[in-house]
């Protein structure tokens, strides 16, 4: 059994590593930044400060240009050699990196690492984070513009939300389904904030941000709307297939055809596009599913 598992993981590694073969086109840079935080990566690109970014983690995938950079792998399963291959002069991360021994090895090698002060976990701290990163890369003006746009989009979204008479119960399923266990986002996640701003509420509560649920609990939560993040949705392809999943079948969402695809990078962290994304979510979850 274990050897079978080894084989599966080998195949998965090889098929998923097309980004690993990306060429380093910034070979001659003196300042070489490896950014291992998807939120930072997006903000840096929005600021137009991406010049010195030479590699990112595999979850940093917005905007599209990021996918052309070499990657150092999944942020919780980094390898020291993989990071060193990018010859970093600075590593940016948000304290959510691992495994621990890799972090210790990087510290022992005295490679400079930086975590920005502001957490970016609500709108105010996200604006502070944008300003902080803007100041770091000397893009203060652009940072101001981004914050202003975020504010005006959020104001619009809050205005929109007033017109909704009902609060929809939304279930966000991450990565689709693995052997009938669903990884769902809970009331304690960034996604939950986004859903609330969009005029909905999370169907599942837990102290952890993500939780594995059995099909029975999914059925019992009986959401009005089900959102699947890109990876899981694309694996199944069409809403009809998703509706057949155990647990999903029979929910209000399945009956009313309210199962939608959402980009993971629009939902799981806050950034300059958060206001826009809330507006998108509002349209998505409040549309009439009957076609």
């Amino acid at each position, binding site marked *: 059994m*274990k050897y079978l598992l080894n084989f599966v993981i080998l195949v998965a590694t090889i098929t998923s590593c097309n980004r690993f073969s990306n060429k380093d086109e910034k070979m001659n840079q003196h300042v070489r930044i490896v950014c291992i935080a998807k939120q930072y990566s997006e903000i840096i690109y929005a600021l137009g400060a991406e010049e010195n970014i030479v590699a990112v983690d595999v979850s940093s995938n917005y905007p599209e240009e990021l996918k052309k950079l070499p990657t150092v792998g999944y942020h919780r399963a980094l390898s020291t050699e993989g990071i060193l291959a*990018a010859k970093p002069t600075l590593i940016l991360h948000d304290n959510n990196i691992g495994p621990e021994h890799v972090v210790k090895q990087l510290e022992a090698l005295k490679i400079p690492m930086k975590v920005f002060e502001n957490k970016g976990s609500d709108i105010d701290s996200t604006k502070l984070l944008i300003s902080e990163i803007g100041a770091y890369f000397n893009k203060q003006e652009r940072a101001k513009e981004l914050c202003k746009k975020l504010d005006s989009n959020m104001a619009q979204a809050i205005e929109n939300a007033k017109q909704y008479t009902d609060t929809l119960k939304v279930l966000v399923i991450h990565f689709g389904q693995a052997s009938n266990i669903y990884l769902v986002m809970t009331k304690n996640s960034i996604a939950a904030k986004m859903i609330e701003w969009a005029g909905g509420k999370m169907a599942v509560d837990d102290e952890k941000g993500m939780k594995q649920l059995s099909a029975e609990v999914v059925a019992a939560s009986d959401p009005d709307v089900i959102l699947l993040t890109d990876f899981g949705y694309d694996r199944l392809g069409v809403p009809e297939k998703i509706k057949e999943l155990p647990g999903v079948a029979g929910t209000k969402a399945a009956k009313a055809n309210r199962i939608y695809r959402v980009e993971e990078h629009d939902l799981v962290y806050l950034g300059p596009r958060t206001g826009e994304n809330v507006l998108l979510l509002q349209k998505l979850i409040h549309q009439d599913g009957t076609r």
Partner: protein
Amino acid sequence: MEQGRSKELIFPLLLSILTGSIILSVRYGAINISVDEILSSLVKYFLASDDMSLNERIFMNIRLPRALLCVFVGASLAVGGVLMQALFRNPIVEPGLVGTSSGAAFGAALYFVLGGTFKFNTNEWTLPIAASVGAMLSTYLVFILSNSKETGRSSIILLLLTGIAINALFMSGVGFLSYIARDPQARSITFWGMGTLSGANWHSVGIVGFSTVTCILIALRFSNQLNALMLGENEAMLLGINISRLKLLTLSVNVVMISAATAFVGVISFVGLVVPHLMRLINGSDNRYLIRNSAIAGGILLSLADVLARMIVRPAELPIGIVTSVVGVPIFILLLRRKNYFF
């Protein structure tokens, strides 16, 4: 006479191959390090100079401990295989198959999950000790359960099936612990499934090196008695050997060595099977040579496997267990297909 001389030549030959593979494994990886940089960093280290370049620091803090850990772990696993094969009197036994490694992984997982919860007073030896207790338990269970009453020798079918059962039991224990674990702990547990040497540091090299060298020296001391045991228990007893003491000693040495290695690098399968088998082909079943040669060859095999693990998907890294399984499974099947399971 000719035979004797070629036996003597094997050991120095293996030693020089080992030196070559160590050099290979410190030089190549996601970044290549030149011989000059290796020499200068060694000089700077002994002069206690703080002024090392990045590549020199990579060599001193990451590559060198990793290369040495490879050698020690490889030697432990290979000698562990030899000892188990002598103890079970069966050439297709190895630590991964008879539950030693999964028991060690379970003990270590228990330490990672409960150690954090109950705030035990721990030091650097707690992890290897926890792993040893788990390994002792699982190996002893397989040993007792698979021993046939009539012949005193474990039948191959019974042994493998018992191994599967005990492995499954302990790996499901690891699975359960990783399921209930809080996030950072769980990340430490998952790697045991396939093993990786990426966590190597001087601390782990120290502990594994100490246990490996001590245990191999002890094993060499009773290699003659193991030869006698392979003739059969009655025969060995007639030669004046205290059988139960020998069995206990072999089991303990083996378990300590394997669990120290497993605690730091996870479960790496098939090294304990492939290496002794190859060494037997070259040099016969005499445990005096077998232990010594297998120790060196185990180091060679694991060093080369680790270089591969680092190179295949670079800049990422494969778990080394994948590499050793790919090499080991065909040999394992070949051994199983042979009608004669015995030495």
